[in-house]
């Protein structure tokens, strides 16, 4: 078929118009002329909103670097980071919790941020809470920097306390007081023989370490060379938790949760108290029908403890854009970045100045946010080393067994036996 020149021109014009439309539709590329870097963090929709805002704020604040946010949903964050590190295509900046940080740090994939911090004029090492900084120190090197941290406190529903005529708990309360109020707050409200409102909930071993520490026990010895969960103190702490479920019946067993979890039970006003870190504050602040506050976990026979966790930021050692990656990290740790973290109520800002600012303490709200900071001197992290992930599998499994009825002494011994094998290196895989 012969095509006339006029038809050729018409076809060309059409193709040109489509191309122009397609390119025009792309709009102006805001990253043009800037150095692009990638930043990954875990989270859900709410986190996307938070991190999207932070990244947008950074991108608007300067004209040299463009940050692309990579939010990984669900529990597969570490796996995804591992895959990308193996493929030498990891993000330039990666967020990590303290536990996986330690696991990855042993592989030598992180840049030492110590020299960057030393040269910085605005952000000083002494500004940080030393506990948070330590969580991202690996064999003396600053392979990550904390952006926020958390102490675990007892969140309580003030209205449920008031309804039972109970005074709100005070910072110096004890285990006996705790048992007394949880008993009073556990209720079968509709009289069908099943509990509808629980005094407390114990969903995870890690937070419940506060009872073990309160009883004078520990998970590992201070040198982290031996598991001591078979010590009398630890067993006493474990027994207290088991008693909350089986002796006092103030904690639901898994089968009594009726498809709900800590969040939904607290939101529904069916849970009087629960342990939660500062990270739980953002969720609780959004609850409309729950009047809540926080208090230090009660004092046990051997002391009063909170648990501490830290979130931090790392730089990929092979990043081709290290100065730009540092520019973003220092933005997160700057007054402006920390103020944003503070205002969201998702954790204690890692720098003292911002943690004690009204942006975090929120004097306009009825809750005593300051209590998260007051808990810091009495807060411990779980013993973290490069085998923590493996050890947590054992803790979780044996904890499960105890909450299904196993004797706490047997639980403590089973934990110690298995974890000592892991620590000895005999089972190094």
């Amino acid at each position: 078929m012969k095509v006339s020149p006029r038809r050729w021109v018409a076809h060309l014009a059409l193709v040109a118009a489509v191309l122009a439309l397609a390119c025009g539709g792309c709009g102006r590329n805001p990253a043009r002329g800037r150095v692009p870097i990638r930043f990954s963090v875990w989270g859900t929709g709410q986190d996307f909103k938070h991190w999207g805002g932070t990244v947008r704020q950074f991108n608007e604040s300067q004209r040299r670097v463009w940050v692309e946010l990579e939010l990984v949903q669900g529990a597969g964050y570490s796996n995804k980071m591992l895959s990308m590190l193996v493929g030498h295509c990891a993000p330039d900046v990666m967020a990590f919790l303290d536990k996986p940080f330690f696991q990855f740090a042993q592989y030598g994939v992180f840049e030492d941020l110590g020299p960057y911090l030393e040269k910085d004029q605005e952000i000083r090492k002494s500004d940080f809470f030393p506990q948070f900084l330590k969580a991202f120190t690996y064999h003396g090197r600053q392979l990550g920097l904390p952006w926020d941290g958390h102490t675990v406190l007892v969140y309580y529903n003030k209205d449920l306390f008031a309804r039972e005529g109970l005074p709100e708990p005070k910072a110096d309360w004890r285990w006996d007081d705790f048992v007394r109020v949880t008993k009073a707050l556990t209720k079968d409200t509709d009289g069908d023989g099943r509990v509808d409102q629980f005094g407390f909930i114990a969903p995870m071993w890690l937070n419940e370490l506060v009872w073990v520490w309160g009883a004078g026990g520990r998970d590992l010895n201070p040198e982290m060379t031996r598991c001591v969960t078979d010590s009398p103190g630890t067993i006493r702490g474990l027994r207290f938790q088991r008693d909350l479920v089986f002796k006092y019946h103030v904690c639901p067993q898994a089968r009594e949760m009726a498809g709900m979890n800590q969040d939904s039970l607290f939101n529904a006003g069916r849970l009087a108290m629960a342990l939660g870190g500062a990270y739980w504050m953002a969720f609780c602040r959004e609850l409309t029908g729950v009047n809540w506050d926080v208090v230090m976990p009660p004092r046990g026979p051997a002391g009063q403890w909170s648990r501490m966790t830290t979130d931090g930021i790392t730089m990929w050692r092979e990043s081709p854009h290290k100065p730009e990656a540092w520019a973003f990290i220092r933005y997160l740790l700057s007054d402006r970045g920390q103020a944003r973290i503070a205002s969201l109520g998702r954790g204690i800002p890692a720098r003292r100045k911002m943690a004690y600012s009204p942006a975090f303490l929120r004097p306009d709200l009825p809750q005593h946010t300051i209590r998260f900071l007051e808990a810091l001197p009495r807060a411990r992290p779980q013993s973290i080393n490069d085998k923590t992930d493996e050890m947590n599998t054992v803790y979780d499994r044996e904890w499960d067994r105890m909450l299904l009825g196993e004797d706490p002494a047997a639980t403590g011994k089973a934990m110690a036996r298995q974890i000592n094998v892991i620590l000895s290196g005999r089972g190094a895989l």
Partner: protein
Amino acid sequence: MRPRRREAWEGYAFAAPWIGGFLMLTAGPMLFSIWLSFHRWNVLQPAHYVGAFNYVYAAHDPRFWTALTNTAAYALVGVPLGQVVALGLAVLLNQQVRGQGFFRTVFYLPSVIAGVATAMVWTLLLHPDAGAVNLVLRGLHLPEKSMPGWFTSPSWWPPGAMPGLILMSVWGTGAAMIIYLAGLQNVPQDLVEAAEIDGATAPQRFRHLTIPMLTPTIFFNVVMGIIGSFQVFTSSYVVSNGTGGPADATLTYVLYLYKHAFEQFHMGYAAALAWIMFAILMSITLLVFKSSGRWVYYEGVQRR
């Protein structure tokens, strides 16, 4: 070219896409995993040769035995139960009733639904307090002590996590059912009519005619069922949120392998676990094949 030779070449030509795919995508990783099973490797650092350590470790690893026992129990109960249900459904769907096509689609539907979605639905259905199954049982005034705890309990009785997983697997027998249905439709009608004329009742015809004629289909479904049940992963992962709990009750073999490989980065041990499973499955399959001479009937083949 001689016809036989030509036929062979044609056969290879038809199989070539699969052979090509196998050589390019599967054979390499398989060989690598054999090599890996004799090494300690965390993915990010160089691998170290450890000889047979990973295999010896498995023999002394209590969780390996727990995972293996759980999986064997799942297969031992789940495969026969699945076959009975699939055959029963196939017999029902083979009847000439109105809406036959609709019913066939409905019963096959669970097999095409994503495993995660199925597991999530069953997690809700089997919730001990709020699930539909226990609500029905409560309606029957079953004592509270005998109420199944399903995925919150490690027990077998009252039904706990493993019976729950088996129940879920039975729901997805659509694929086996379709194969049984095809097998039933291949039972020669002249034999059925001859048996009818000879006065055989329906149960007698089923026992002495249909079942023997179906044995090649049963054999195929049993082998596939055993292999499938040893590979169970999605359901145990979803119901336990990846932990294998409560108290390791849903820790199946592949879930355990996955946890070592992708949560703890023990790639060498995970590879060894994979090859141990291969050896176990191969042995079981060979046993079933060996036994087939005694119970599988092929039309036109003389039994020795």
